[in-house]
């Protein structure tokens, strides 16, 4: 696997399609590699079968089975690029994010290979990169500590650099809050006092605090009005234009089309179609039936709920 990858890296300039995707010629690979590359990712969970009747012994020996949730998924992100992962809810998009961040549930079995900056990563390596290179904007506002004022959560605490660093971080936090339209009074609030939109902006500020190279944003826009949602994705776009990479996980196709360079369509645990933004201009440009169903279900196109089984999420 390692050697095969080196070979494809050398072919990058000459091949139009590589690593299951194509991209515009201006998107270089600094250092001859992708910022992030995921190959053959499979995530499954060990779950208990319903315990058969028969008391404690049967209960303790309840059979387990393995459920595949993500299978054989490959995707890559270049520096300077926004890749949108769009698809059905429940198709495993969040598990992709968790895998890249090394966040694994105790009963998860994860296989596959992840490279970051050309280096093959272990689970420990991914954990070490979390917050130091790769930052995460989570989906659930429940990720905020309900008992801590939000300013403090964004700054973090116990800094190695002592008072000077704490002050620098406070300045950065205030800059970020100001940029995202959060007033100075907001840093004294607790999460329950924030509106849904404010909470999401606080989460985005957390991710930007440590000047990451790669941002994994898992549904950063629900609950924001159109203007704020556009601003949120535009900020991710600016981050990419400044040389960072963004994996934008979203169900919002319209929004993805406005900022992304490439769209990876996700269904039932894998990427079924990786295509350019331009292909979404009309359903004829789209190859996979699920991608076309997604297009037709948009409120502005037809609001069509597909009847055939197998397309539904």
């Amino acid at each position, binding site marked *: 696997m390692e050697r095969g990858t080196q070979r494809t890296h050398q072919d990058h300039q000459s091949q139009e399609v590589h690593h299951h995707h194509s991209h515009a010629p201006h998107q270089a690979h600094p250092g001859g590699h992708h910022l992030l590359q995921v190959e053959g990712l499979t995530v499954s*969970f060990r*779950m208990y079968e*319903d315990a058969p009747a028969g008391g404690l012994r049967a209960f303790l020996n309840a059979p387990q089975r393995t459920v595949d949730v993500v299978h054989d998924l490959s995707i890559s992100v270049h520096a300077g690029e926004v890749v949108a992962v*769009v*698809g*059905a*809810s*429940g*198709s*495993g998009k*969040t598990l992709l994010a968790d895998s890249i961040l090394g966040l694994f549930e105790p009963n998860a079995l994860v296989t596959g290979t992840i490279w970051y900056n050309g280096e093959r990563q272990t689970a420990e390596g991914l954990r070490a990169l979390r917050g130091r290179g790769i930052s995460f904007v989570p*989906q*659930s*506002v*429940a990720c905020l500590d309900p008992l801590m004022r939000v300013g403090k959560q964004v700054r973090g605490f116990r800094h190695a650099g002592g008072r000077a660093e704490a002050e620098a971080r406070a300045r950065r936090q205030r800059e970020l809050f100001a940029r995202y339209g959060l007033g100075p009074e907001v840093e004294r609030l607790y999460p329950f*006092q924030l*509106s*849904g*939109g*404010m909470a999401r902006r606080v989460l985005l500020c957390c991710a930007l605090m440590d000047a990451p190279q790669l941002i994994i944003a898992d*549904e950063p826009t*629900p*609950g*924001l*009005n*159109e203007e*704020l*949602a556009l601003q949120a994705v535009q900020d991710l776009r600016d981050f990419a234009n400044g040389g960072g990479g963004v994996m934008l996980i979203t*169900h919002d*196709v319209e929004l993805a089309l406005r900022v992304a360079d490439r769209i990876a369509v996700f269904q039932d645990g894998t990427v079924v179609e990786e295509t350019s933004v331009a292909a979404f201009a009309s359903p004829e440009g789209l190859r996979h039936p*699920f991608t076309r*169903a*997604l*297009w037709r*279900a*948009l*409120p*502005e196109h037809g*609001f*069509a*709920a*597909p009847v055939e089984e197998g*397309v*539904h*999420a």
Partner: protein
Amino acid sequence: MLEARNITFRYGPREPLIYDGFSFSVRPGERVHLDAPSGFGKTTLCRLLSGYLRPLSGEVLVDGAPLPARGACPVQLIGQHPERVLDPRMRMQASLAEAGEMDAGLLARLGIRDEWLTRFPHELSGGEMQRFCIARALMARPKYLIADETSTMLDAVTQAQIWQVILEEADARNMGLVFTTHSRPLATRLLIP
């Protein structure tokens, strides 16, 4: 009729008043879109109307009577964060049973798969949890349904599917529907049949 009469509300004694002598009403079968920027109190109003919050003064009435203190509320709320309204230690079928009689047809139309029934909330995605919350709200046979950014976490296909079910149920039972959404195309779709 669902009415808010002269309601006043703030989150604490030193917090600003969010609603001050506010009145509002919805007739059976009516669809109302609540529209305001982020942070203007749309969710607060949804919670007041459905009894999750009590107004400081004024009252919320259904057909002239205050919301009952016991039993299923005739105004059901489907919120923005399904993970916050499901007991993390209850399997999904137990959470559904809170609303009474299981309606297998409704579950099927919402795309709820049988194998999800024995799972815990953390074993489901946000969109899957939301389908359960919708099923639970509808199974409680409400007269009014409050949908606060209900489909904001759903992909377009699922969104179309669940709204189709909600609108069919609302029409069939002559239910009043109050909703918030940041999506202008969606609001247009829901208001203009």
